[in-house]
């Protein structure tokens, strides 16, 4: 699946301006960015439910902009909140979506048993969808979205508000799909999920700022990262603001991640600075950046364009 030169405006707001991306089969491609960066708009254009103002989208060789109807059987789009009929049971919801996609009955039965088992929903087949928990609803949404065996799966923040156990089930299903060569594109607000993607696009103001594997994005982060562990991380965070050579500061629980231009030179300077303020630093050591550090470094204020 690839897209070139995607543009879309909503009135005066340019939601998406010039997106190029290509996702290979068997890849889990992540879209990461702050709210309003254009993630949902991109997804809806790729799914063929929103026409781009300009640009081209190809999905398994089908021109999505010109012929969305031909693309629809090939893909599955799962919005942030999957539309389930709450007055229908789990099995009836699956039957409904399977029939819309003309899935033959034997295939439907085999597939739904397999998917329900993977989602841990087999026991709830006769329960009304409205009586499922948030995580179970989201998994049922995924089951409905996968019932027609799509080649391309578009997931918009699929695990927002989902409990950790359901999230693990969810990712289990996604890895299984990747093995079968399904193309997966998802947006996420969870950094641990972003780490699991094969490639990531960092989105800001409707444009892709950086696009690479998580490892290479980390390597591309300007500067080096130091973890400052202190009993009073909040005070240290305040004290370190404006320190020489400082590129970024991020408070992470009991520690402060400090991004500096030169780790070897700045570490003793920071220790001295904290000591001068009466804050005893237990430890200052270089650390591997997490994707969250990269995200903040690349998209945060004062980040390189």
């Amino acid at each position, binding site marked *: 699946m690839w897209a070139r030169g995607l543009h879309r405006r909503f009135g005066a707001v340019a939601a998406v301006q010039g997106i190029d991306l290509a996702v290979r089969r068997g890849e889990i491609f992540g879209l990461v960015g702050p709210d309003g960066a254009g993630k949902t708009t991109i997804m809806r254009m790729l799914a063929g*439910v929103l026409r781009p103002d300009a640009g081209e989208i190809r999905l398994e060789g089908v021109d999505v902009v010109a012929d969305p109807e031909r693309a629809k*059987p090939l893909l599955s789009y799962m919005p942030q909140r999957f539309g389930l009929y709450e007055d229908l049971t789990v099995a009836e919801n699956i*039957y409904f979506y399977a029939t819309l996609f*003309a899935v033959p009955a034997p295939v439907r039965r085999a597939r739904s048993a397999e998917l329900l088992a993977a989602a841990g929903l087999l026991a709830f087949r006769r329960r009304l969808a409205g009586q499922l928990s948030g995580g179970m609803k989201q998994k049922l949404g995924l089951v409905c979205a996968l019932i027609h065996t799509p080649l391309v799966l578009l997931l918009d923040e699929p695990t927002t508000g989902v409990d950790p156990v359901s999230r693990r089930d969810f990712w289990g299903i996604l890895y299984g799909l990747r093995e079968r060569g399904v193309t997966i594109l998802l947006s996420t607000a969870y950094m641990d999920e972003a780490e699991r993607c094969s490639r990531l696009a960092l989105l800001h103001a409707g444009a892709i700022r950086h696009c690479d594997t998580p490892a290479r994005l980390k390597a591309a982060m300007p500067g080096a990262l130091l973890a400052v562990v202190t009993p009073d991380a909040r005070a240290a965070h305040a004290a370190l603001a404006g320190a020489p050579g400082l590129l970024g500061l991020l408070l992470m629980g009991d520690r402060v991640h400090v991004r500096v231009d030169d780790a070897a030179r700045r570490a003793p300077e920071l220790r001295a600075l904290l000591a001068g303020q009466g804050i005893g630093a237990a430890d200052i050591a270089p650390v591997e950046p997490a994707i969250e550090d990269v995200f903040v470094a690349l998209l945060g204020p004062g980040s390189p364009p």
Partner: protein
Amino acid sequence: MFERLHVMLVKEFLELRRDRWAMVRLIVPLLIQALVFGYAATFTVNHVATVVLDLDRSQASRTLVSHFAANGRFDIVEMAATQQAVTHAIDTGRAVVAIVIHAGFAAKLANGRSAPLAIAVDGTNSNTALIALGYVSLIVARFEAEAMAHGWPVPGETASSGADVPLQERPWFNQGLDDRWFFIPGVIGTLTLIQVVSLTALAVVREREVGTLEQIMVSPIRPFEFILGKTVPFFLIGLGDVVLVTVFGVLWFGIPFVGSPLVMLLGSSLFLLAALGLGLLLSTLARTQQQAFALNFFLVNPFFILSGFAFPIAAMPPVLQWFTLINPLRYFLVVIRAVFLKGVGIDVLWPDLLAMGALGAGMLALSVLRFRKSLD
């Protein structure tokens, strides 16, 4: 395509069946409103509270008052002693009509001179006032006739007035001029319109709100399949409404149904097309169920008032009369009343049927077009 439409319908009926209160919500208000309309919606004026000031106290004046008392249209609530008491009774709303018989009424009558009688009517409700005045004229006329028979010469009548033109009133189709016969058929159209428009609009908007609409639209279903799946159930519910209120009107209120059920079915179907189109159109204009509700409220009342349900279209200003031309209820009321009371067929009703068909096709086409756009 048939599979997808079928599963849409299965889903709609499953949802309806799961909703325990759906049937109650659909049927009970309909019957209650039909009952209320049947009993309350009437132009007939009965038991008008009346105050009488008899300053003559003669046999003639007492006879006149007894005519009013015996008629049943007027309830004499007070025999006032003074003009002030009369004014007070009207002011406080204790009486709507005041009859004032001045002193010398009988004497003047006996002398064959004009005997004045003052009637005051509370015109706040102009309709009631006008109708009550009509009854007053009737009663006074009957009193005059009797007075002549008793040998009291009545002013204006001379013995030689031979040319008598008797007016024979013979109302057709509704011999008793029973208002109910006029209103109940109208109630069928009105209630069906309100119910079908709001059900359709809310159902589609709900799918939009819940997110199922977008989910369905990423499937290979075509918009018209979705729209058919969404409208066929409400079409059936609408037909059920028509049958239910018709049977109720005939059995409970004894309204005659002299026409052809087939013409009624045809008229109802065309009318429902227009109502469904209107509901869908509303659903494309509303993002939330609240908006749909507000729009529905905004639209349905004018449609009701400008339909000829109670207020004659011919008496409306031209601009409003033009508006009635795009009002499906206007045509349906003509059809339904004609079928109920006159028993005429398609040969007479075809212009109204055609108009409803055209309106229905137009509104459905417009709503399908708008529906496609509203998905973006």
